[in-house]
């Protein structure tokens, strides 16, 4: 997996590169907008991580230039501007995801993984399968082993999102954004409660749990033995 990090703050850039390399990514750095643009155009990257405010050429114009040339590499925008309208502006400019600073690396990693998978992954499937858990997106049926599970509509969408990203860490904010479409930061552990309700429906009474809590990051659905 190849990453290009376009970030002008040397320390954050180095920290990010090191952290990504530790989890097995190839991470390259660019320190300003012009350099970033030329690297992004020539190199073959899976995901671009772009700071919004860059010297020489700002992040949004960089993305615009890339998109104009038909480059569809997924872009994650990092920005100190974290308000809803900034986010909308960023996504409109051609970004695929938007993460306000300061962020945790776990959050960034989870989002980058989802982005890279989205890029290379196959067309949307109608059925998701994890272990003996099966979710049919058309008939809204969820079956574990031989039992059919009854889920509330929101629980279904939560499970759908988790299963779509099976094997990937999904953070609480990602869930809040994608399942509930809220972009604020709740002061309480609302998401955890929803997850534990879902868990009691899909894992309770089964020998092997599928829905895992990833400490300090979020959740992941995965078949224990693979």
């Amino acid at each position, binding site marked *: 997996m190849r990453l290009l990090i376009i970030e002008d703050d040397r320390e954050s850039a180095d920290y990010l590169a090191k952290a990504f390399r530790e989890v097995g990514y190839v991470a390259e750095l660019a320190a300003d907008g012009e350099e970033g643009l030329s690297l992004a155009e020539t190199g073959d990257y899976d995901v671009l991580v772009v700071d919004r405010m860059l010297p020489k050429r700002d992040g949004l114009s960089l993305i615009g230039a890339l998109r104009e040339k038909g480059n569809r590499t997924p872009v994650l925008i990092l920005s100190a501007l974290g308000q809803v309208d900034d986010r*909308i502006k960023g996504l409109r400019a051609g970004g695929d995801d938007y993460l306000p600073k300061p962020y945790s690396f776990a959050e960034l990693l989870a989002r980058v993984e989802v982005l890279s998978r989205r890029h290379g992954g196959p067309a949307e499937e109608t059925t998701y399968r994890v272990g003996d858990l099966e979710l049919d997106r058309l008939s809204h049926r969820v079956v574990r082993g031989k039992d059919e599970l009854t889920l509330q509509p929101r629980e279904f969408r939560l499970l759908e999102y988790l299963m779509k990203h099976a094997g990937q860490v999904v953070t609480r904010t990602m869930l809040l954004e994608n399942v509930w479409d809220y972009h604020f*930061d709740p*002061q309480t552990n609302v998401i955890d409660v929803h997850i534990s309700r879902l868990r009691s429906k899909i894992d309770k009474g089964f020998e092997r749990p599928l829905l895992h809590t990833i400490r300090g990051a979020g959740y992941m659905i995965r078949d224990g033995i693979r």
Partner: protein
Amino acid sequence: MTAFGKLIRTTAFRLTLAYLFLFALFAASLLGYFAWNTRRLITEQITSTVNAEIGEIDDIFGRRGLRGLVFTIENRALRPGANLYLVTTPNGQAIAGNVGSLAPGVMATNGWSETAYRRLEDQDNADHRALVRVTQLSGGFRLLIGRDLEERKRLFGIVANAAQWSLLIVVVLGLAGGVFVARRVLRRIDAMTGTTQRIMAGDLSGRLPVGRSGDELDRLAENLNAMLERIEALMVGLKEVSDNIAHDLKTPLTRLRNRAEEALASSGSDAEYRHALERTIEESDGLIRTFNALLMIARAESGQARGNMDDFDAAEVANGIHELYEPLAEEDGMTLRVKATSTRLHGNRELISQALANLVENAIKYGTPAPSAQPLSAGAADSAESREILIEARRDGNQVLLSVTDHGPGIPEADRKHAVERFVRLEASRTQPGSGLGLSLASAVATLHGGELRLADAHPGLTATLAIPAADTSERVAGQTPDMSKTG
């Protein structure tokens, strides 16, 4: 720029000049019309008397012959202020009358003419002008009767004189008036400019002077004052925020630093370091949350989020928040219910959702009935009701009300206004986690939408209501300071 230069550049002065010009033109044309009319009148008078006299004389000549004619003419010519008379023989010799000399050729042509003349008895050499008519009598005699035009000239002189003076008076009075008005306006504008300069220099308490006349300048000054009021309030708010940020962010930052220092100093195990680091991350996450909330409030208060507004259903927001928080409430032993009627709202959906979420989080955190307040006799049903939180969305007149009611200890009336302020965490809540910004954000969001956050007694408990103008009435008139309602 000199004072004079400033004066003549004022709009008032320029307008005065324009009016002055118009008035002068008007006066001049009026006098001109008057003069022309008088002249016409005098001429008409002369011609009619002369015509009558000629008829008369002709008649006398016909009846009494040359003797009668000469006699009558000589007689009339001797009267004081008399007309001009001249009778000549067919070969041009004067035989009667009071005219000494005439411009050449006048006597030869019949009809009206204006001519220079001299009277017989006149000793001076000055030429006078007269309007005369010459007729041919029978037998070749010619008769001239005319009238001196001195009177007409004099009248003309009077009119011209009057015109000069009146123009002069108009100009002088007009200029003086213009200067007076311009100076008056200029003084007031200068006062305003002085005040605004003081304000720009940093004295935000300055206000423009407002007169009593209620004219356009007063209204302008009033509006500017209202604007200054708002700016000052914002600045005070900003200062309060920075003070509070300094205080409330420094405390956790100091804690963070101390903990790191302590961990560094101690020779602990790996597990202990780990624990210290985890605590550090937790603490900084809290800081980030506080910071985000502060930015959000600042954003909402400055009105920047106004760009992202559209129409949506308040009931959807209420149902969405209910759906999100219902499991959390249940986990905390409460029941979260929703009662929403569909009603349109114009605003920033995300912000309103967040404001409502904050109210619900507050209700879950603080809405638990105080143990001491629970009478021992309270049955299971009572207790279930007292642990219920209700989200409501409905329309009331031209307002949309989004409210959250809990049955906890509530907020004493005296504290309610205070509770909305930033970082305020009432005594009872000090032990709970949170940034103390929830109500401030809700209030800022309500203000952004031209509404207000109301806190009221729910007997027992608290009803927090976001009252926001409905979609059809909301004209994005945000800005007024929210006012606390005393009653539910």
